[in-house]
């Protein structure tokens, strides 16, 4: 059948099992929107308040489901508004398809109204991007873009479609949904070498990150740890792949990681690194990072091996395949001394527990009340770290947070997207600063009655930056005190959502219980002291030997 380019865009997305897309219309995507209207019984379009929100929504959708997230925007400002969202997905390896309209081919290069070289702009922040010059290539380009985004190490792909291509017609026939490229299998020699290194070690530590989440490798990691008597820690990106309460799991390590997890990593003699990229937030000084330990690094991306941290054995292959084979060949062993040492670290960690610490109490309340499969989404700042530290994760893919780019303003879009992806309620924990960047998406949440509970940890400051000023800039709080007069309860009501306020644990429990039961969105303004700190803390560029543990510890 002969279809127009605009129709091909929509039919190809439907063919590829895309159920929901997020976007914002404009001149150069009018034809695609016309088709979306006509086919709205087969594909849902969610209109956000801002293209950045749409990009984060597509990202949140992808993180929650593991499927591709799709965002659509017009040329020029619509396209440039996607940039932060695309970069966020890029740094966290999220499969995202961004479709943009552009001016007609014969006008490209003439600085027309709303003409932007979005392919050039997004070159360094996409896995790949395409400009479609012939309508005959359109369907296959979209299919290929989805394949690229999902294969290997996932990432964002942009397809720029000039307006004339959307109008031109050509033959179209359906094809099967694309399958991912096969990942490389684990080479036997490397598996044997890893088993040898494990046999020689007496203090093994398994360290996993976002790659393990993408591969769903949690069960295998825990099986390996049981067999070789290792403890487990993860990066911020690895959270929720294993249940927080799992016996061998010490939780997140790194800049604001758990004491026992970071310390055990520093004291181990073998670190088995699964799907990580050794970000400076996880390692501190990469040169001195666990210098005493040998390291095995398994990642799907060959370019990650030896990039930031030199390892003794680096393998680029499918991590689940590697783990399966390794569990098969590795010898069962016990490391009682190591387990004792770790138990001591855990006792020490318990001693640092601060009483009546409202951020922790609030996250515990959320943990108590929410269903196991509720997605916990955050913005960026202290509230993000507290959530990462204290939330009791029980199910996979329930942690949705911008790790690599640390994008304030990620939360609202991502929470809406994740709720669409899972079909369930999401909880967003945000800060007063971050919420200021994305609260406009409250309009979207209300319009679509998205089941979303928003907790604003309102400390009147840009807390995370203030903390750095507190510790390293002599408490000179330059431009981090907000003290805005915004009333978040009234603001919620103005948007058509429910608004609540709480200032202690008990009040918070009551209002959260009520808010969580509502069918649609609600905002809880939770008042928090502006001088709370996220601890422990690894000084940027420092080593795990010198963690800042309490207020008196000076950097």
């Amino acid at each position: 059948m002969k279809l127009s380019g605009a129709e091909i865009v929509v039919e190809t997305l439907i063919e590829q099992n895309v159920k929901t897309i997020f976007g914002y219309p404009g001149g150069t995507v009018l034809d695609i929107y016309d088709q979306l209207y006509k086919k709205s019984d087969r594909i849902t379009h969610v209109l956000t308040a801002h293209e950045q929100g749409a990009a984060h929504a597509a990202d949140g959708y992808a993180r929650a489901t593991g499927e591709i997230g799709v965002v659509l925007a017009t040329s020029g400002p619509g396209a440039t508004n996607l940039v932060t969202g695309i970069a966020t997905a890029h740094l966290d390896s999220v499969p995202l398809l961004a479709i943009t309209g552009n001016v007609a081919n014969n006008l490209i290069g003439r600085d027309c109204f709303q003409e932007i070289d979005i392919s050039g702009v997004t070159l360094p922040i996409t896995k790949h991007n395409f400009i479609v010059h012939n309508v005959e290539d359109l369907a296959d380009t979209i299919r290929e873009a989805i394949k690229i985004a999902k294969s290997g190490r996932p990432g964002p792909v942009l397809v720029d479609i000039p307006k004339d291509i959307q109008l031109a017609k050509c033959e179209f026939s359906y094809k099967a949904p694309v399958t991912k490229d096969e990942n490389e299998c684990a080479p036997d020699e490397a598996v044997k070498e890893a088993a040898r290194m494990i046999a020689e070690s007496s203090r093994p530590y398994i360290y996993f990150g976002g790659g393990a989440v993408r591969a769903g490798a949690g069960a295998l990691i825990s099986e390996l740890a049981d067999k070789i008597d290792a403890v487990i820690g993860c990066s911020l990106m690895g959270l929720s792949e294993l249940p927080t309460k799992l016996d061998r799991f010490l939780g997140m390590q790194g800049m604001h990681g758990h004491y026992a997890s970071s310390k055990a990593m520093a004291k181990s003699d073998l670190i088995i690194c699964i799907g990580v990229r050794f970000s400076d937030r996880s390692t501190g000084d990469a040169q001195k990072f666990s210098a005493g330990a040998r390291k095995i690094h398994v990642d799907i991306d060959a370019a990650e091996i030896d990039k930031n941290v030199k390892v003794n054995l680096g393998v680029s292959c499918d991590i689940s395949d590697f783990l399966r084979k390794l569990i098969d060949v590795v010898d069962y062993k016990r490391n009682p001394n190591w387990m004792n040492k770790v138990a001591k670290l855990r006792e020490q960690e318990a001693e640092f527990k601060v009483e009546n610490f409202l951020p922790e109490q609030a996250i515990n309340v959320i943990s108590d009340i929410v269903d196991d499969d509720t997605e916990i989404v955050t913005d960026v700042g202290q509230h993000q770290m507290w959530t990462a530290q204290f939330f009791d994760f029980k199910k996979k893919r329930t942690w949705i947070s911008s790790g690599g780019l640390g994008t304030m303003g990620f939360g609202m879009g991502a929470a809406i997207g994740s709720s669409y992806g899972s079909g369930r309620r999401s909880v967003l924990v945000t800060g007063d600063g971050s919420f200021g960047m994305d609260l406009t998406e409250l309009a979207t949440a209300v319009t679509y009655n998205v089941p979303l509970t928003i907790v604003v940890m309102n400390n009147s400051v840009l807390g995370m930056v203030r903390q750095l000023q507190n510790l390293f800039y002599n408490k000179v709080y330059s431009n981090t005190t907000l003290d805005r007069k915004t009333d978040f309860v009234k603001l919620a009501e103005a948007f058509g959502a429910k608004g609540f306020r709480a200032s202690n644990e008990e009040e918070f429990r009551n209002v959260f219980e009520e808010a969580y039961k509502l069918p649609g969105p609600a905002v809880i303004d939770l008042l928090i002291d502006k001088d709370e700190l996220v601890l422990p803390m690894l000084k940027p560029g420092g080593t795990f030997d010198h963690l800042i543990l309490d207020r008196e510890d000076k950097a």
Partner: protein
Amino acid sequence: MNKQSYVIAAFVENKSGVLMRVTSMFNRRGFNIDTLTVGETESPEYSRITLTFSGDQDDLHQLVTQLQKLYNVKKVEVISAEIGIRRELLLIKVKNSSETRGDLRDAVDVFKAKIVDYSAEAMCLEVTGDSTKIDNFIDNMKPFGIIEMCRTGIVALERGSESILSK
């Protein structure tokens, strides 16, 4: 670690924008590229990029694996010094005068260069060879007065019957 100069050949799709993708990656990742040439190959759908850069083994590994990740890059090969044939071409315009003419001609003979343009005031010379030979030739020309020059950067193939794609 000790720095070294490496020659790398990349087989890339012959499409617009591919060179930009490659150089943008180098720029973003902070690779120091010394020379880069690009041209057609035996198959019209591919171009071959030959580049030299200096770095250590780790830099080399990074550069190769990052190149391999680019969608339009089909194959990357490090051309080893032992079996690699490396050539550069130089066009150089030098001052010509009745006093220096003889010496210039001698240099042209020794380096197997060619005189491609000639006037009473200037000569344009063409010379091919490996980079050391080109460097030497330029040094030799300096006393005569170099008006302008242009070198292509290295192109390289490996000896033997195989191609980068067949390997």
